[in-house]
C-alpha cells in the first residue's frame, strides 16, 4: 500500500515537473459568439507568435512556452471559470481581451499576485501603477483614444470645434462607456456638442441610433464598438449615406472584418490604431518559416496580416518581452508571476528593440515605470481603402492630451483606492 502511494506521488511530481519549468501564458480567447469575428484573428496572432518563439528560439531564455487557450465567449462567467482553471497552472500574465472580464479580474489578480496586461482596453485608470500595481494597459488607453480622435478632428477643422456636433455611438457596457468622461471634458473645453448613442449588447439592432444620427446630422461620429456591432454600424452608416470620412472608430472598431461586409460603401471609414498594419515585417518571414509552412498556424490560418492578427502578435510580443525582461532582472529563466510583474513594469519599447524583434516601426515607443502603466498614449489614424481592400495609415502617431488624462486618471484611480482601502505602491 505504501509503495503504491509513493509511486502515485512520484508519478504526480513527475507529471507536474516539466510543467513547472515552462512559461505559462493563458490565452483567454473567444472564437464563438457575437464577438468571434474579432476574437479569432487576435487569438490566432497570439498563438502564432508563441508557437514561433518555441520553434525558433526554443521559447524565451531557454524556457519553452506553454500557451493554454480557454474559450470565454466574451462572457464574464466563463471568463472567471477560465481564470480559475488556468491560474493554478502558473499563469504569468492574463490578457482577457474583454473590458468586462478585465473589471472582473482586476481585484482577483491583485489578490492572487498575477499581472494582467490589457493592451489598449480595460480600465483606463489602471494606468496609475500606484493604485493598480498588477495591471498594465500600455501602449495607449481608451481616454488616449478619445483625446487622439478629438485632436485629429481639431486638426481637420483648423483647430476649432466650437458649435460642432459629435456623436458617440458606443457599446452599452463598461467598455463603451469608458470614453464618455474624457469626451465630456473635451466637449466643454472645445465647445462641441456631444451626442451619446448607446447600443445594447450584442449590437445587431441599431436602426434607431442611426435614424437619430440622420435626424441630428452630427458633423462627426465616433464609435466604440466591438464584434458584430461594428459591422452593423458601418452598414447602417452606409445605408443612411453618412459620409464615411467623418466616421471614426476606436482601434477595436477598425479591422478588416468590420468594414468588409459593407463592401464599397465602407470606403473612407477611419479608425484609430496603435500599431502598424499589413504584413511587411521581418517577423512575418519567421512566422512563415517556423509556423505556417509547417501547418501549425492557429485557427484557419486565414487572418495573417489583418489588423487584429497583428494586434494579437503585438500582445504576445509584449508578454514575451516582459518575460525576457523579468528573466534579465532576476537572473533566472524560470520566472514567477511576481517576477513577470517586475519585467512588465520595466519594459521599454524603443525603435531599436522593435527592429531587433523583426517588427521595425510596428508600434509607438514607450517605457513603463512603477507609476505609469499606461504607456505613451499615442495612436494613429487609419483609413479603409475598399478598392484595394486594405487599411492605409493616414497620420503619424498623435500624442493625446496627457495633462487632461493624467488628471482624470488620478481622480478615478484615487477614488478606487479610497473605496477599496488600497495602499499606494511606488512610495
Amino acid at each position, binding site marked *: 500500500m505504501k509503495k503504491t502511494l509513493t509511486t502515485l506521488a512520484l508519478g504526480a511530481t513527475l507529471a507536474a515537473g516539466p510543467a513547472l519549468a515552462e512559461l505559462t501564458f493563458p490565452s483567454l*480567447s473567444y*472564437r*464563438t459568439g457575437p464577438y*468571434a469575428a474579432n476574437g*479569432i484573428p487576435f487569438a490566432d496572432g497570439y498563438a502564432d507568435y508563441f508557437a514561433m518563439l518555441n520553434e525558433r528560439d526554443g521559447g524565451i531564455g531557454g524556457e519553452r512556452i506553454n500557451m493554454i*487557450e*480557454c*474559450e470565454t*465567449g466574451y*462572457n*464574464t*462567467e466563463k471568463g*472567471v*471559470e477560465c481564470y*480559475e*482553471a488556468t*491560474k*493554478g497552472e502558473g499563469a504569468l500574465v492574463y490578457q482577457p481581451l474583454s*473590458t*468586462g472580464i478585465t*473589471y*472582473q479580474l*482586476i*481585484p*482577483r489578480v*491583485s*489578490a*492572487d499576485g498575477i499581472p494582467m496586461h490589457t493592451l489598449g482596453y480595460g*480600465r483606463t*485608470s489602471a494606468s496609475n501603477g500606484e493604485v493598480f500595481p498588477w495591471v498594465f494597459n500600455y501602449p495607449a488607453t481608451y481616454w488616449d483614444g478619445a483625446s487622439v480622435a478629438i485632436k485629429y478632428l481639431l486638426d481637420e477643422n483648423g483647430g476649432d470645434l466650437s458649435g460642432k456636433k459629435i456623436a458617440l455611438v458606443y457599446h*452599452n*457596457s*463598461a467598455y463603451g*462607456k*469608458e470614453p*464618455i*468622461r474624457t469626451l465630456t471634458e473635451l466637449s466643454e473645453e472645445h465647445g462641441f456638442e456631444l451626442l451619446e448613442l*448607446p447600443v*445594447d*449588447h450584442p449590437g445587431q439592432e441599431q436602426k434607431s441610433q442611426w435614424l437619430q444620427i440622420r435626424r441630428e446630422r452630427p458633423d462627426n461620429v465616433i464609435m466604440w464598438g466591438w464584434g458584430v456591432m461594428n459591422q452593423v454600424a458601418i452598414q447602417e452608416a452606409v445605408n443612411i449615406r453618412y459620409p464615411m470620412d467623418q466616421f471614426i472608430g476606436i482601434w477595436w472598431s477598425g479591422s478588416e472584418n468590420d468594414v468588409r461586409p459593407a463592401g464599397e460603401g465602407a470606403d473612407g471609414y477611419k479608425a484609430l490604431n496603435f500599431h502598424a498594419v499589413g504584413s511587411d515585417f521581418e517577423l512575418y518571414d519567421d512566422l512563415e518559416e517556423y509556423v505556417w509552412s509547417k501547418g501549425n498556424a492557429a*485557427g484557419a490560418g486565414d487572418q495573417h496580416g489583418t489588423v487584429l492578427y497583428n494586434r494579437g502578435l503585438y500582445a504576445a510580443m509584449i508578454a514575451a518581452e516582459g518575460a525576457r525582461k523579468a528573466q534579465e532582472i532576476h537572473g533566472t529563466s524560470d520566472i514567477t508571476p511576481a517576477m513577470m510583474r517586475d519585467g512588465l513594469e520595466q519594459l521599454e519599447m524603443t525603435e531599436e528593440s522593435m527592429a531587433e524583434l523583426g517588427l521595425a516601426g510596428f508600434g509607438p515607443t514607450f517605457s513603463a515605470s512603477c507609476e505609469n502603466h499606461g504607456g505613451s498614449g499615442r495612436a494613429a489614424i487609419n483609413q479603409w481603402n475598399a478598392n484595394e481592400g486594405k487599411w492605409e495609415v493616414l497620420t503619424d502617431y498623435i500624442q493625446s492630451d496627457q495633462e487632461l488624462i493624467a488628471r482624470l486618471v488620478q481622480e*478615478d484611480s484615487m477614488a478606487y483606492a479610497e*473605496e*477599496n*482601502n488600497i495602499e499606494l505602491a511606488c512610495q
Partner: protein
Amino acid sequence: MLYREAGDFKTTYREDSQTFPIRLDRTAYFLILAVAALFVPFVINDYWLNAVLLPFLIYAIAAMGLNILTGYCGQVSLGTGAFMAVGAYACYKLMTAFPDINIAIHIVLSGFITAGVGMLFGLPSLRIKGFYLAVATLAAQFFLVWLFNRVPWFYNYSASGQINAPERTLAGFRITGPETQAWAVYLFCLVFVVASAWICRNLTRGAMGRKWMAIRDMDIAAEIIGVNPLRAKLSAFGVSSFFVGISGALFFSVYLGAVEVGEAFGINKSFLVLFMVIIGGLGSILGSFLGAAFMVLLPVLLKNVLVGGLGWPTDLAAHLEYMIVGGLIIFFLIVEPHGLAQLWRITKEKLRLWPFPH
C-alpha cells in the same frame, strides 16, 4: 428491496407528513447535507468554488424562485434576469450605503426589495395570462435593465457603469471581495441554499402552496372554492422574486464581484433559469437543483473533457458544447417532458418494486 416503505411505520401525524417519509430518502438527505457541510469545505479550492459550486448553488436558488412562480403557480415569467439584477443592485446600494452592517442581512434585505419589485410587476398577472403574461414580464426584463443602465444613482455614478462588490466580512471571515477563503464563501452560500430550499419546500406543502397549485391547475375553479387570485398570484410573485433576488445578490456580491447589468442580467439569464426549471421539472424543488446542475455543470464538464482531456481546439469544443447541451435539452423534453425530477420519481417507483416488478 432496498428502497421501500414497508416496515417504515409511522405512529404520529407529524411523522407521516414529514418531507421525506421514506427512511432511505431521509438518510440520503442528511448524508448529502453532511457531506456538503462537513466534508466539502475541507477539500474545496478556488476552481471548484468559482467554476462549479458557486454557480450551481446560486442558480439553484434562482431556479427554486422561478419554480415557485412558474412551476407551482403557473405564471410564466421571462423577467428572472431583471429580478436578479434588482437583487444585485439592491445589495450593492445597501453594501455601499451601510458598510458596517452584516452582509447576510444585506442579502436578505435585497431579497425583500426584489419581492416588492416583483409584486409590482406581478400586478398585470391579475388580468393577463399565459403567453401574454410572459410578454408583460419581458417588459419588466427590458425596463429594469434599461433603468439600471440609465440612472447613475444605481451604480453610484461610477464611470464605467459597473458595480463592484466591496470587501465585507461575516464574523471576521471575508465573504465578498477578492481575498476570500473558498470554504467560507462556500458555506455562506450553502446556508442560503439550504434555508431557501427548506422554506420553499415547506411553503409549497402548506396552504399557500396549495392555493398556488389550485390557481395553476384552473384559476376559475380555484376562485370558486375560495382562493383569492389576487393574493395567491401576488404572493407567488413576491415569494418567487424574493428568492430570485437573493440569488441575484449572491451572484453579484459573492460570485462575480463586478457586474454589468446588460451582460450579466440580460434576457439570456432569464431563459437560462427558465430552461433550468423546465429541464429540472416544473413544480419540484429537487427539479430546481437538478436543472441548475444540468445547465451549469454540464458545460463545464464537457469543456474539461473535450479541451482538457482530449486536447481539442477550444472553438470546436465550444461549438460542440452548444450542440450537445441543446441536443440533450431536446432529448429530455421529448423523452421526459416533466423534467429530470420526473425521471427520478419514475426511478424511485421502479426501485420500490425491484427486483420483482410483477
